[in-house]
């Protein structure tokens, strides 16, 4: 059954924050399904609601509206006791390996904390064994077991964060920009590690990032967000071959490519900046920066429609845009 394949389903999820200046629409009407063993990349600029989306799905913060189904079960409003059970199955890897680890805990204490909380093992000995095993899995040398995070570099710290997230063998992991704080050569090591772990343990990832080249590398499907709204969603290959939404196009053309044959090709530089997410007008949120915007865009909110199989776009003019010229 198709039901079985889907691990996570999000329906019309909304998260508004009440601020003194009005309602901040961080996540607005997000709907998607994520199949087991797949990776969904979530892309967008800062402030577009990527992290809020990840945290709302994990119930680290409560949603304002909409529903979250995990493994066929509605978890939008489950009790705290039930939530604790759920935490075994869904985990998060945080962006910043410098602030997401308790500086007063040793590496082994950090990794064993989830095992302790969920009382997975009876005694300390078994826990220690598992900690060593986890450290091996993520490529941390055993001798670091009693060191503190500040003694280690960013790459190793991020490995601790990963070990802690996979300690309970979860089904679903939200990766919130796990490599953006790392150097390129280390970034590649961590990305490879995460892909290996996925293959070996069958994790399902939601990979939040602003780096499009990373997301292409790791994701099966990509969801582009702009100011809390879904802008485009399709398979990762399709998105790079045939981006339809003007925002996606602008994002793609803004990536600096490390190849001098591209030099001289003026990248389309998008004007303006992300507008305020507080009380946004009921229209296309990208209209203020869009080169193709018309009055219709400034009045009506475009629907998120399927323009070709498994390719969704929210734009009034998806069919009237000039075709992307092939390089």
């Amino acid at each position, binding site marked *: 059954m198709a039901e079985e394949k889907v691990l996570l389903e999000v329906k019309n999820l909304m998260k508004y924050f009440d601020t003194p200046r009005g309602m901040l629409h961080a996540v607005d009407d997000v709907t998607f399904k994520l199949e087991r063993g797949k990776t969904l990349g979530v892309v967008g*600029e*800062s402030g577009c609601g990527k992290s809020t989306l990840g945290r709302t799905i994990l119930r680290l913060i409560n949603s304002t509206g909409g529903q979250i189904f995990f493994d066929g079960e509605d978890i939008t409003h489950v009790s705290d006791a039930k939530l604790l059970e759920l935490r075994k199955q869904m985990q998060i890897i945080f962006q910043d390996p410098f602030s997401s680890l308790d500086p007063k805990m040793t590496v082994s204490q950090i990794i064993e904390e989830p095992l302790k909380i969920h009382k997975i093992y009876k005694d300390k000995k078994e826990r220690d064994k598992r900690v060593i095993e986890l450290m091996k899995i993520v490529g941390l040398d055993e001798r670091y077991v009693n060191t503190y995070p500040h003694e280690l*570099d*960013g*790459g*190793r710290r991020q490995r601790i964060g990963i070990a802690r997230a996979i300690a309970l063998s979860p089904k679903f992991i939200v990766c919130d920009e796990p490599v953006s704080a790392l*150097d*390129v*050569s*280390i*970034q*590649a*090591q961590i*990305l*490879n590690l995460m*892909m290996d772990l996925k293959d070996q343990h069958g994790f399902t990832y939601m990979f939040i990032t*602003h*780096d*499009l*080249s*990373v997301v*292409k*590398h790791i994701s099966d499907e990509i969801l582009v967000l702009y100011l809390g709204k879904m802008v485009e969603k399709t398979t990762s*290959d399709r998105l*790079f071959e045939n981006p339809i939404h003007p925002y996606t196009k*602008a*994002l793609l*053309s*803004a*990536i*600096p*490519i*490390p*190849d*001098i044959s*591209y*030099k001289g090709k003026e*990248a389309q*530089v*998008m*004007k303006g*900046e*992300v507008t305020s997410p507080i009380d946004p007008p009921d229209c296309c949120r990208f209209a203020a920066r869009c080169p193709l915007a018309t009055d219709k865009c400034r009045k009506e909110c475009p629907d998120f429609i399927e323009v070709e199989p498994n390719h969704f776009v929210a734009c009034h003019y998806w069919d009237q845009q000039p075709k992307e010229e092939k390089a």
Partner: protein
Amino acid sequence: MGENLLEIKDYCVTYTVDKINSYAVNHINLSLGKGETLGLVGETGAGKTTTALSIMGLLPKYGVKTSGEIWFDGQQLTGMKEKDYRKIRGKRISMIFQDPMTALNPVFRVGDQIADVIKIHNPKLSHGEVGEKVDEIMKMVGIPPERKVEYPHQFSGGMRQRIVIAIAIACNPDLLLADEPTTALDVTIQAQVIKMMKNLQKELNSSVILITHDLGIVANFCDKVAIMYGGEIVESGTLEDIFDKSLPHHPYTIGLFDSLPNITEKTDRLKPIKGLTPHPSELPDGCKFHPRCPQCMDKCKSGDNPELYIDGTHCIQCHLYSKGDK
């Protein structure tokens, strides 16, 4: 070619903290002509920022040992008196800092912060003239001059970085050091800032040293490239020398390129460089890169630095290409 604006000769910086020496910059040689842009590429701890601070004369006073020479437009900067340095710093050499969130003073209006530089270096200008100059510079970086009365927190990250750039170019410097100017910004804003910097560079005909770890930006922006590792320049040359895959390269350069996820073609696995960048206090003997190098040979593990392989403008510091024993 003509006169080189900046010439760094056999320059070293050693920091000493708690009797432990950190060899941040080791025997680097660099030259930069007028109007040229140089990309200084390397990872954390490679010595990029220390190099920039040395040129600015902003290294800490204590616990630092330097040797070698830095020449700027015929003047030697190393050992220059602070009084003289002040006439150059901010006027002829200026720097764009990495983090626009912390580089600005939060309690001063941005217009005043730009005006500060102009006043110091042009003490004869009247109040009105300084104001005009501030307006002009703000227009150049694409911020409406009306906003000069606002405070840094009222600007977004991209706008703040524009103000930092405005401060740096306020006196039409001959040399601009940009230390990861776009790392803290989003891609679309990064594209805006890079485009603006390109235009400004053409307009002012300044030389620029762009410090970055993003090879994509280098390919877009620079004429020359120097790759740093462990405080040394392991490879340098023109943009074409470095980015042409058919030419010989330092194994570290190859590793850097392979580590990047490629958006133009599909790869299943990245090929990272194994191991970690060494801390500058624990640099290995011999070639600094040898513990991580896939082509390491016995002679790489000890002894002096490998000889430079030189092919026109292209220099590689690696035993693989040393003369006589290929």
